[in-house]
């Protein structure tokens, strides 16, 4: 008994985590899969089971639109954010005067994260007669209505996330610091210009970090909620209604937990597919130094 306890003492230490995992992860995960095949309504219970929710997700106009908008949002936000973060990290990697101050300043938006206050501020900036419109008018321009033009509305929501590139930037910065100086020196001696050094040395050597940032940012983008919920509440006319908002509306406004669960599972599968594709594709473009 003593020996058994000694050998398995580790399990006792992970019991709190295990309980948390079972109760707050595995159980909701399993139950939501079950509910996704039912018409479970919070106040009416389950009356029907089947794949009707999944059929409705792909046949109802509103759901298909939300799926498309989610893709649009993710495919705009992720590349823009990665490019912005890498660009700024590259600049901040130079030995400039006051570079630490700039690093801090660029990181501040990320500290604010997905906070409600920032979303409210964003709304105030971009509303009709808001600061951005006033500035454009002062410069003699004719600003669009950011909140009611569907394309602009989605863009300003993307912009909020792109603006918060600090964390991604810091990870890029760490990767850039890991690129050996002698490679640049050798390239410079061979006459390679800065941009060539960047694309031929820097980018290949930091591809594992680009890959990591791509995966994490993609997951975040597909799960985005706060920004569109607070800034536009899915409007105008549902044109910024991402899947996450539709899940929320179905679950907590229509109390249709069956549909909300099915949507969550569709989103999960979509993310899994994209992640799998990314992992499969990495052998073509990600360079790991230990692979030789």
């Amino acid at each position: 008994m003593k020996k058994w306890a000694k050998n398995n003492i580790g399990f006792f230490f992970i019991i709190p985590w295990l309980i948390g995992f079972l109760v707050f992860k595995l159980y909701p995960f399993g139950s939501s899969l079950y509910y996704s095949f039912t018409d479970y309504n919070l106040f009416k219970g389950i009356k029907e089971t089947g794949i009707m929710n999944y059929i409705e997700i792909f046949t109802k106009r509103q759901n298909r639109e939300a799926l498309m908008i989610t893709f649009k949002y993710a495919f705009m936000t992720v590349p823009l954010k990665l490019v912005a973060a890498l660009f700024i990290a590259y600049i901040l990697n130079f030995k400039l005067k006051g570079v630490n101050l700039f690093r801090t300043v660029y990181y501040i938006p990320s500290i604010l994260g997905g906070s409600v206050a920032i979303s409210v501020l964003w709304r105030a900036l971009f509303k009709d007669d808001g600061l951005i419109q006033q500035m454009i008018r002062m410069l003699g321009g004719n600003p669009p209505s950011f909140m009611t033009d569907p394309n602009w509305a989605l863009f300003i929501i993307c912009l909020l996330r792109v603006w918060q590139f600090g964390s991604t930037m810091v990870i890029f910065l760490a990767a850039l610091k890991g690129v050996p100086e002698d490679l640049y020196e050798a390239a410079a001696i061979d006459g390679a210009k800065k941009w060539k050094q960047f694309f031929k040395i820097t980018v290949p050597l930091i591809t594992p970090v680009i890959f990591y940032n791509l995966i994490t940012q993609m997951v975040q983008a597909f799960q985005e909620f706060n920004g569109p919920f607070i800034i536009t509440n899915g409007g105008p006319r549902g044109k910024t209604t991402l899947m996450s908002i539709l899940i929320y509306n179905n679950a907590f406004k229509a109390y249709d937990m069956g549909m909300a669960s099915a949507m969550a599972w569709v989103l999960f599968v979509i993310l899994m597919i994209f992640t799998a594709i990314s992992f499969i594709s990495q052998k073509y473009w990600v360079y790991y130094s230990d692979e030789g």
Partner: protein
Amino acid sequence: MKMRKILSLGLAAVMTLSLGSALTVQAEQADYEECTIKFAWWGGDSRHEATQKAVDAFMAKYPGINVEVNFGAWSDWEAARALEFQSGTAADVNQINLSWINEFDSDASVFLDLNEVADIIDLSQWEQVNLDMMKDSNGGQAGVPVAMTGRIFYWDKTTFDEAGIAVPTSLAELREAGKVFQEKLGDDYYPLALGEFDRMILMTFYLQAKYGKAIMADGAVQFTEEELQDGLNFIMSLEADHVIPSIVTIDGDAAASIDQNPKFISGKYAGILEWDSAAKKYIDALEEGRELVVGEEFTDFGDNGATGVFSKVSLGFAISTTSEHPKESAMLINYLLNDPEGAAIMGTERGIPESKAAYAVLDEAGSLDPVIAEAHGKVMAAAEYAEEPRFESNDLKGSEGTYKYVFGGLSYGEFDTAEGAAELLDGMNAVFE
């Protein structure tokens, strides 16, 4: 010196004991348990302030009953409470909407039948017809109505003065005001601002007045697609005549509600169609120096002088079946709605009270808010119909509901009124299925 110390200590002990026994006696007289109950309501700042004061007074009157309060704005309030009702974690005492009885208490399991605590809540203070509106599917008394209400126009008189015209008393005058506002004050100024649900209500007034029938009755929609299209055309004509801003314009303002919209606060939107009980928050929201006055219900929607106005239970109080202290919860409700002290503090923050006792107290003290009293008097005098609770069903009124879809779609030019009418009728029929 020693003797004086002993005497004072003794005296203090006697006083403490007698205070304790007095409290016990009081508690025994009132025959209640020392406990903590929760009370949840939504509203604006002035309602919160008055209700908190009333709750404090209740706790002072009944020592030992501690009331924890949970209050906030309407936005997303319903969703949060719905989850509590479903999970059995709701507050003991809840401010509820009439439609909640249908939506959340369809099997009469969420709200306590108040007949069970009728010895504490004096139900005789309400007209039976009003109590009946809050019955559940089993015939139980799911709640008590705090007030009756209906919609009426409120005008920012200051803006109308700036435009050099009187506040409108008829549809014809309102249409004329649209022109004057645009010419004299500019494109940003509108005599009336209506969100999607407000549009539905004004359209209902128009249709009910013109066709002489309720929009929903006997478990069905009473209007044909063509009649609904007539109503939608009427609403869109107001937009075309610069009487109301488009939904696109209101969306562009990016305000959570009309009372938080800077254009309303500054008088650019010079009118609203609101519940008589909600006037206070709009008055409070206006810039200093601006005057909001109660308008008239229009009688020129059709040729028959009808108003088409409907009234409803504005809101009620209910006790959750999960409450461990239904008796003390009932005491709180009775205090807030029937007790002279409680009713006086609550005032007209939830409209003109339906409880006869509360009304008498406020009337005698001259503390019926004059604006609310005027609005309420006009609404009740003009009301021709009672609202069918499903008119405000979440599927219709909610943020993803039919009203928002139809009126927003029309305003954004996504479809015409014929298609809008078909969508509206489909959506309204669906709530009866």
